[in-house]
């Protein structure tokens, strides 16, 4: 650092660098302007007659370009400072150094964060009740919690396939659908209880996973992605068109509710409330569902973490790294891939049957490609293979848009016609771009070696080539 006196020190940015940043930001603003002209600069409105009027909106264009100019400058400055700081304090995981044994500050925070996360998840119904002043008024929060946890579970399930085994699956929602429909059909046709159907749904989805696995065993990367995408669509189209069995587009309704291990959540004599001598409240069922999905999600996590330490889990990770090397070490890549597909699918199926029991109604609408994309985005944003990362990403991806509903006060800023919900996808896109810039390998890109002698050591993700696996 001696020969570059204070040039990159935090705070002091030389004029030449600043000019470069300004030029760069101006270029960004120009590109933004180019994009805005066809999209934003004029709006069509219905005129007094039946004619269309063009309303110019150059003010909006100008403010957007100005915003992009400023944001780009800020981004460059922040990155510059970060690089300068990193140059001064070498990272503990430099290329040729052995990885550090002591957890660094970031890891300590993430460990603390993990326990806080689990704590909040376990006590959410209580917190929500206390915060909103009643069980019924906490309904919204518990519902949201159930929704998020469903995606956490789906993300963890898909993580086995995509994150661990490195098989890009764009049709994961198919297994979610198989699980949901198998519970719906088994319970409405044969009257089987939820507790029997839950494992059955997992088994069926797992079988479908194998079925998909066989033809795609030879494929990798892009080709695999396309075939799985097609598989997801095929399942959805079958659900729509096989009207005799699936009810077609109308779906299946009046699916039996979940019971407390056989005791229904009803107001009657045999109901849950009466049996346990507490006043009846329709919220009991919801709280039960919340803990059910929490347990299912934690079970998924537990199984994944256990498997990672067993030979099969390591074989998945090795498969992600190098398939040819795997085979030459005597690993049966066919069986390894099939187990990853089947297991990931089974968890998707279990989540699906939970979805069916919660909704009481399912239709093919719920299982479109967008769902697959969201689940995959959760896995990728979370950092491929990281369990905690996936959970955080699920909260952000599912909970984030919900938070937009609570931004009504912004009407004061943007005028009465402002509806924050319309900006969901915009914010989603912004979040994605921010991720690309700041954490291109996902929120949590470190992985712990599954087994180590003595102390556990984190293997930093800093040197992983991007897009590998």
């Amino acid at each position, binding site marked *: 650092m001696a020969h570059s006196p204070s040039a990159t020190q935090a705070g002091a940015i030389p004029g030449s660098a600043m000019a470069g940043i300004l030029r760069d930001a101006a270029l960004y603003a120009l590109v933004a302007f180019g994009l805005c002209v066809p999209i934003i600069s004029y709006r069509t409105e219905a005129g007094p007659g039946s004619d269309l009027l063009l309303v110019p909106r150059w003010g909006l264009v100008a403010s957007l370009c100005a915003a992009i100019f400023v944001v780009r400058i800020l981004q460059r400055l922040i990155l510059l400072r970060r690089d300068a700081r990193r140059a001064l304090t070498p990272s503990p995981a430099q*290329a*040729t*150094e*052995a*990885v550090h044994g002591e957890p660094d500050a970031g890891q300590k925070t993430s460990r603390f964060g993990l326990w806080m996360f689990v704590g909040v998840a376990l006590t959410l119904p209580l917190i929500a009740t206390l915060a909103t002043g009643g069980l019924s008024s906490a309904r919204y929060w518990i519902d949201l919690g159930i929704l998020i946890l469903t995606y956490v579970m789906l993300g963890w399930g898909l993580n086995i396939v995509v994150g661990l085994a490195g098989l890009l699956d764009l049709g994961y929602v198919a297994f979610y659908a198989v699980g949901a429909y198998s519970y719906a059909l088994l319970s409405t046709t044969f009257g089987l209880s939820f507790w029997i159907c839950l494992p059955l749904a997992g088994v069926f989805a797992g079988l479908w996973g194998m079925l998909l696995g066989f033809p795609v065993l030879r494929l990798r990367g892009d080709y695999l992605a396309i075939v799985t995408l097609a598989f997801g669509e095929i399942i959805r189209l079958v659900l729509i068109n096989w009207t005799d069995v699936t009810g077609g587009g109308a779906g299946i309704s009046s699916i039996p509710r979940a019971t407390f291990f056989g005791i229904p959540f009803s107001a009657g004599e045999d109901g849950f409330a009466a049996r346990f001598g507490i006043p009846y409240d329709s919220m009991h069922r919801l709280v039960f569902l919340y803990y059910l999905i929490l347990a299912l999600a934690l079970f998924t996590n537990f199984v994944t973490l256990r498997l990672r330490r067993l*030979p099969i889990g*390591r*074989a998945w*990770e*090795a498969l992600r*790294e*190098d398939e*040819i*090397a*795997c*085979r*030459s*070490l*005597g*690993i*049966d*890549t066919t069986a390894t891939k099939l187990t990853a597909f089947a297991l990931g699918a089974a968890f998707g199926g279990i989540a699906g049957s939970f979805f069916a029991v919660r909704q009481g109604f399912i239709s093919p609408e719920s299982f479109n490609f967008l769902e697959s994309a969201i689940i995959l985005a959760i896995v990728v944003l979370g950092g491929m293979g990281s369990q905690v990362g996936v959970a955080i990403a699920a909260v952000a991806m599912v909970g984030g848009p919900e938070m937009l509903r609570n931004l009504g006060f912004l009407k004061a800023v943007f005028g009465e016609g402002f509806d924050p919900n319309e900006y969901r996808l915009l914010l989603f896109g912004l979040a994605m771009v921010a991720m690309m810039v700041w954490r291109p390998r996902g929120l949590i890109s470190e*992985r712990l*070696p*599954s*087994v*180590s*002698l003595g102390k556990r*050591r984190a*293997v*930093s993700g800093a*040197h*992983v*080539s991007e897009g*590998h*696996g």
Partner: protein
Amino acid sequence: MSVAGINVLVEETRAIQAGAKPPLLAVRDVSTYYGSVAALRGVDIDVADGEIVTLIGANGAGKSTLMMTIFGSPQARTGTITYDGRDITRLPTHAIARLGIAQSPEGRRVFPRMSVFENLQMGASLHGERHFQEDLEKVCTLFPRVKERLHQRAGTMSGGEQQMLAIARALMSRPRLLLLDEPSLGLAPLVVKGIFDAIKELNRTDGMTIFLVEQNAYHALKLAHRGYVLVNGRVTMSGTGRALLDDPNVKAAYLEGGHTGPVGA
């Protein structure tokens, strides 16, 4: 190597060719194609138990293809490959690996995101925990550099260290036959020497059979008991390492005009 030693080897070679002792690995009239392009045309190769056999040849001669064909990927279109009296021509790769053949493939192919230790565990996946510690200590003695880097991410090591890891990983499966594809590729002369010394050591103390594919003809022929020369998918010459080293044709094609003379070795 003493003159007497060479004579013994020559005798042995003759004995093998006479069919007195069946070879551990026998490649018979093997042809391999990539689509319609022939990469190997009727190759015959024998590797006897306890031998170091090397296959030398120029770029694109089909050396790596032969190596991969022995391992079942791609499979030979015609001909047979026998290992320990068993026809392995049509077996899938992982099944061949389970018979006691291990490979350090071309380009090393270590698992870059896994630690060195985990890479070695992957190598031992056929045996699990049974004699893992023992084998780990053994490869660490053979390659002290690997021991130093046990908890480092494999992808961050130097090329030479990765090559050592690739061999160490292959050894973790306790192979009877070790296939090495260009272990000297892209490495500094001193590192190459270290690796070749280790190969010699494995053969001498453990009696491991080694089939070595090399472009570095001088070192390979010096190390090997016997050698084959592959040109355009055909074996054009074979003999003891010493005989091939002294052969004027081999000298002209692979030693003198080539990149690997005895300079400084």
